């Protein structure tokens, strides 16, 4: 059946580009208590808020990776509106290097998947949250972040690191130029910022540099050339 009104076509083809985002979360023992409770609450609210946007619903795919004694996929890439509620627990060490490598593997694989289906995609995000220093080697992971962010004219990845009380500033600044610090364990503001950023990217054109909004009051950028 043709969909036309007086011969004028109705353009019904969905042609949504996709944005892959990995939430890379430190669930080591030191995150136990207020921090992990705040994180769980903020992520679940992030899902609710971002899902309200019609374009973000169709375009944003979220995966969740946690790292403690090792790294584990908590949630595979899922449309944001279909994320299940999470209830992370905190214990163990801080296998940050393993987590970063896993997250990079996932976004690269994901973008390859999109390309195989001809699906246009935005530059993927990895958003890491940590309150400590790594207990494994992060050298290789740091090198990979730099490599991916230097590829092509605009890079193939955006890596953000959010430090929570007790975080190792030196390590994070070696990993990425996009380091932020949270002054308390109220994650809701930073996840609102993430939600607004995802929405802004969703409405942009693939390849367009999107200006991100201001951070919430309890977060600050750690000086770099960002």
């Amino acid at each position, binding site marked *: *059946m043709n969909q036309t009104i007086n011969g004028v076509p109705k353009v019904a*083809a*969905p*042609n949504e580009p996709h944005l892959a985002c990995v939430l890379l979360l430190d669930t080591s023992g030191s995150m136990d208590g207020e921090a992990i409770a705040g994180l769980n609450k903020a992520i679940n609210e992030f899902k609710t808020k971002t899902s309200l946007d019609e374009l973000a619903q169709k375009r944003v795919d979220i995966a969740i990776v946690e790292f403690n004694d090792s790294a584990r996929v908590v949630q*595979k890439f899922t449309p944001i509106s279909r994320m299940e509620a999470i209830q992370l627990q905190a214990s163990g060490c801080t296998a940050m290097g393993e987590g970063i490598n896993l997250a990079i593997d996932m976004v690269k694989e994901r973008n390859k998947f999109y390309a195989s*289906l001809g699906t246009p995609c935005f530059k993927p995000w990895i958003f890491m949250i940590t309150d400590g220093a790594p207990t494994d080697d992060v050298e290789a992971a740091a090198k990979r972040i730099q490599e991916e962010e230097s590829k092509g004219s605009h890079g193939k990845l955006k890596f953000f690191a959010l430090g929570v009380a007790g975080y190792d500033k030196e390590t994070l600044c070696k990993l990425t130029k996009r380091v932020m610090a949270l002054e308390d364990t109220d994650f809701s503001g930073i996840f609102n910022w993430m939600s607004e950023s995802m929405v802004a990217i969703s409405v942009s054109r693939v390849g367009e540099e999107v200006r991100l909004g201001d951070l919430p009051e309890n977060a600050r950028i750690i000086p770099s050339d960002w």
Partner: protein
Amino acid sequence: MLCFYGISLTGTSHAKSGGVCQDAHQIELLPCGRAVAAVADGVGSAKHSDVAAKLAVETLVAALRESLTKDSCAEDIKRYIASGYAAAEQAVEAEAERNGDSITEYDTTLSAVVYGGKGLVYGHSGDGGIVGLTCDGEYVPVTTPQKAADGICVVPLRAGASSWVIDSCESDFASVLLATDGIYDLLFPYLLKGRKTRVYVPFIRYFMDNEILAATPKNIQSVKAAREAFLSGEALAGVTDDKTVAVIVNSSVLPRRRESGYYAEPDWAALQEEWNRKAYPHLYSDPREGE
């Protein structure tokens, strides 16, 4: 008899920031009886890409106007197009140099055809493209979008002769359409990738099937006006990029009507479901046979 129309509209993403249209097009019917059409899309981040796009199409069309004769064969025309591309590249470089700017601020794509009512000869550089409607009623992509290795960045005109694709198509065409990527991408939705019919037929035929256009030299302006209203209307409100189409129709030919299924609206819900099952297999507890 050849009729033609061309439309370039500023995208809402540019209009909002007070920007200009970075697309350009030009179409001419030459004394030799052939029509020439060129479209160009200035790269969004390049400061003077609107100037470059305009300069590229004007220079190329001017070069072809000078060279083409009634006796020009396909090989001649390919050479003329190649020279025209080189002239366009040089013109843009000279403009950048004159203004003391980096050439990267003048990045643009460029696609062009020479069409005499049957076969066509074309040049292509960048991520827009050309589609032909054969007399047999089939929509045929003539070009392939050119993107850099990252899959996002465009291969611009200044990538040089080794990147330009200049060739001819001997099929009998009833019409030909050129578009920049704002529209071209809509003609080939990715949900149709791998299907027998890759092009979004109900959409494209509104622009280039003369059974729908009913275009003649006398009414071509109203044909154009209707398409322009459509492109700037609600149906394409989600397309924020600049939009350009340039169409040349041989109004003496009506393409063969194919079976009704060819013109049917694809089942987007089913296609999206198929894509979702590949993208999110963990969300489906009922794997289909063969999955």
